[in-house]
């Protein structure tokens, strides 16, 4: 397959960036999007040009590194998959493909398609944990947890922190990420002692990092490679309102 790539090239956060056109020739329909970029990069390297910088790690859709906005959609077309799990057969032969970094003021650009997502780490540091003295592993099932709660906590815990929710949201909001990280603990007994303190600290950090706020468009849920539900945003709103007004 052949494609025409329009790729955002930018040396670093301080230099101006622009879209640059590259042809991608003889691409296997079964190659992943990352492999396709590698083919293009090999060609660039042979010509002595600077290859396109991007981030990737596990290549199996669980690390959340491969952040790219493809044709205006984070992780590209198709639901429930990261960029590394996106295959070129999802595109038409001869298609023009637009590749941009995840855009957010809270994700400063490092180079080309790489952004710095440490603002997510700071949201986690603000409360995305439980404070317990760890010792020997507890017996399984020593704390009974209803199946529904366990399932919902697990669904929230699938968040890989890739930032697609922020990149897809018209408002650059990080509410789906923050809500998932709040809910995975709020749904479990171990998360209860710090439940309300946690939500307040995490939301305040989210606001201070410069993320936008949710206008309930649910684009985040649609672009999330783990298909995390916006129900967790409602749950976070409820906990935050309770924490600030009733506690």
């Amino acid at each position, binding site marked *: 397959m052949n494609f025409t790539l329009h790729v955002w090239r930018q040396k670093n956060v301080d230099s101006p960036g622009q879209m640059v056109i590259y042809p991608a020739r003889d691409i296997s329909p079964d190659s992943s999007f990352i492999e396709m970029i590698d083919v293009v990069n090999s060609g660039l390297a042979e010509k002595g040009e600077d290859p396109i910088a991007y981030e990737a790690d596990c290549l199996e859709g669980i690390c959340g590194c491969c952040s790219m906005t493809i044709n*205006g959609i984070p992780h590209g077309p198709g639901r429930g998959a990261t960029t590394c799990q996106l295959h070129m057969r999802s595109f038409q032969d001869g298609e023009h493909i637009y590749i941009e970094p995840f855009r957010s003021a809270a994700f400063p650009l490092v180079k080309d398609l790489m952004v710095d997502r440490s603002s997510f780490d700071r949201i986690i540091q603000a409360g995305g944990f439980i404070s317990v003295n760890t010792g020997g592993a507890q017996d399984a099932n020593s704390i009974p947890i209803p199946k529904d709660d366990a399932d919902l906590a697990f669904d929230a815990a699938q968040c890989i922190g890739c930032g697609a929710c922020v990149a897809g949201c018209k408002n650059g909001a990080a509410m789906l990420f923050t809500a998932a990280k709040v809910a995975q603990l709020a749904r479990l007994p171990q998360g209860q002692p710090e439940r309300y303190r946690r939500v307040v600290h995490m939301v305040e950090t989210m606001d201070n990092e410069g993320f936008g706020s949710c206008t309930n468009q649910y684009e985040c849920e649609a672009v999330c490679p783990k298909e995390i539900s916006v129900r967790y945003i409602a749950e976070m709103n409820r906990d935050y309102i309770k924490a600030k007004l009733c506690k």
Partner: protein
Amino acid sequence: MNNLLAFFSSSIGRKVLIAITGLLLVLFLIAHLIGNLLFFLGPDSLNSYAAALKGNPALLWSARIGLLTVFVLHLMNALALAMQNRAARGVQYQNKGYMAATAASRTMVITGLVVLLYVAYHLSHFTLGLTNPDHFSMHDAQGRHDVYGMILHGFQIPVVAWGYVAAMLVVAYHLSHGIQSSLQTFGLRNENYTPCVKQFSVFLALLLCLGFSSIPLAVQFGLVG
């Protein structure tokens, strides 16, 4: 008090404030529509209703001041958040696509500002009597302000009547997202009733649009007067 102020200056707090004021404005629209529909019962019903409202200045002015406060809070907070949200993107995309966000949800600021312009015109038309002073100064046989005649004459002008209908479509578009959105903001979500809430949001928006539009349409098609 400090807690409350801190809450309403957070992103979620501001959204809660926009949702509360938005729902209050919807309640006002329902009350306003019920009053408007007296038009179909004839001049006496509508004019005596209007005279009763004007005859109770304490109620009238507290309602007006309350309404203005709610409107300004809704508008200012929504604009402030919209500006923050725009800044949160940083560099704009060259090519942005959407998978789920509806056009209504993406155009809330635009439709909201159109409604603001409409309200400015509507107040100068029917409340302040600035745009058609000749319609505004009429009195009925009992010497009351002839609200019925004012509406009838106003809506006999095609551009005014159709302008009102168009404005009501914009209001409905705004509400079709706004009503359901407010419940999500309050955290009132449940996998059973949320789909119904979405449908109800669109239904209520259309009902209000139809109700308000029925008057200019009835006048334009010669069904009244």
